[in-house]
């Protein structure tokens, strides 16, 4: 098997692992307003923690580049929100939902999919050192992707999307990872300079989604102390988890 095919298969495995993030929601049958709020809080914490990890990696390649990438990520979300807003609420349909809920789900899937592009490049560039460490890195990234699947499912499931389709959207959001990993692996030198921008972009987009949408929404429907507890604990757990990997 040629080397790039190995990289592709490894990266594909990491994308499929994201679907496992829908599993915890198999056991949650009732969907109350509180559940929507607390699932949003968990998603917020996981994304905040994941962004910390991306920024830590990005600043290793270049600080200013990471910050600039982050600002571009914010601009991207603002433009996307504007575009979705101009579609006149009712016309947006995502899964079974319409309007506000559909808009949030669509934005979530877009943000997480875009962030996977940057992660794919990061995977490819780190593989560039040699495929020997490949299996270890792959397992690490596959495990790292599971909570991202949890975050996506935590936004989709409360809107009535089935567990199977939550898993499918989670895998979908990670597909750019194998697609970007291969060219990044083959042309490491060309991709490396773009990496801090990409990582910053992904972090900026995710944090902005959390602060501008998920968190205020969670506060609006649940008890403050519970939202803060869930989000803070998820964020710290995510960072510790990534450092441990």
């Amino acid at each position, binding site marked *: 098997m040629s080397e790039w095919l190995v990289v592709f298969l490894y990266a594909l495995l990491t994308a499929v692992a994201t679907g496992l993030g829908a599993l915890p929601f198999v056991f949650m049958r009732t969907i109350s307003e509180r559940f929507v709020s607390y699932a949003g809080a968990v998603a917020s914490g996981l994304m905040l923690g994941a962004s910390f990890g991306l920024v*830590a990696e990005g600043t290793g390649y270049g*600080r200013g580049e990471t910050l600039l990438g982050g600002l571009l990520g914010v601009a991207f979300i603002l433009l996307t929100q504007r575009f979705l807003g101009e579609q006149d609420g009712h016309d947006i349909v995502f899964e079974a939902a319409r309007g506000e809920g559909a808009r949030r789900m669509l934005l979530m899937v877009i943000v997480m999919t875009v962030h996977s592009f940057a992660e794919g490049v990061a995977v490819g560039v780190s593989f560039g050192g040699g495929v020997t460490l490949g299996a270890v890195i792959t397992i690490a990234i596959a495990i790292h992707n599971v909570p991202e699947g949890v975050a996506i499912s935590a936004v989709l499931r409360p809107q009535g999307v089935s567990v199977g389709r939550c898993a499918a959207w989670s895998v979908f959001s990670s597909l750019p990872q194998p697609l970007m990993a291969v060219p990044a692996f083959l042309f490491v030198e060309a991709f490396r300079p773009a990496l801090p921008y990409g990582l910053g972009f992904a972090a900026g987009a995710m944090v902005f989604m959390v602060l501008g949408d998920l968190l205020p929404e969670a506060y609006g429907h649940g008890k*403050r*102390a519970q939202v803060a507890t869930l989000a803070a604990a998820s964020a*710290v757990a995510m960072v*510790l988890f990534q450092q441990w990997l």
Partner: protein
Amino acid sequence: MTTLEPLGTVLAFSTLAALAAAFGALPQAFHVPPPRRAIGWANALAGGLMLGVAYALLTQGLTQGLLAGGAGALLGLAFVRGTHALAGTGELDLDSSESPSASVGYKSVLVDALHAADEGVAIGAAMAVALPLGTAMAVTLAIHNIPEALVLTSALTRVGVRPYQSAVIAVAVNVNQVLLAVFAFSLVALWPSLLPWLAGFAVGALIYRTLVELLPESYAQAGRTSIAMITLLALGVVVLLVGVTS
């Protein structure tokens, strides 16, 4: 670092951070009450700085013991949640103008005094990781204390406290920040293995406090997008300046 020698630095910088609060009292002292939206932005700024500081500690203070750090973070979270529950300040809005009463004033002061406690631990723990991180942490928290004092003095004047008195109170609530900075630093100097516990405690407390006080209040005071933007910018600048010092 196992010597107490830089204790003077810790003392000086944490005192500086505490005194910075006086600047936040200026608008009230000159009888220019800031508009509600500006208070929301001040809250968002304070929250972003807080999250940035937590990031710096999280990535640099817990490396020697992830489990101890995680346990410390849970303790910090439980500490803030518990003190809120005990004091009955869980859902306190510093800008709730409906019932200006003495008890709202007392509670506001209490919340900020407890606030300063975990900030003190954060400064002490950061100093123990590395002096540059510690000084950067103290400067960040000094800046953070200004919008915090702005919010507190606005609340106090609303319940009838005189402007100059509210300024004194805004600085006084930060005294335990100095005490706990020195205390946390000394603890780590004596028992270095406590570092991940203390850093974790500060991280858990800072993130929880931001999420339970600063952010939800700010969303009620100004629009989501402006709050997200200010918080993110403050967070980004701290991460770039402080997060990668060592």
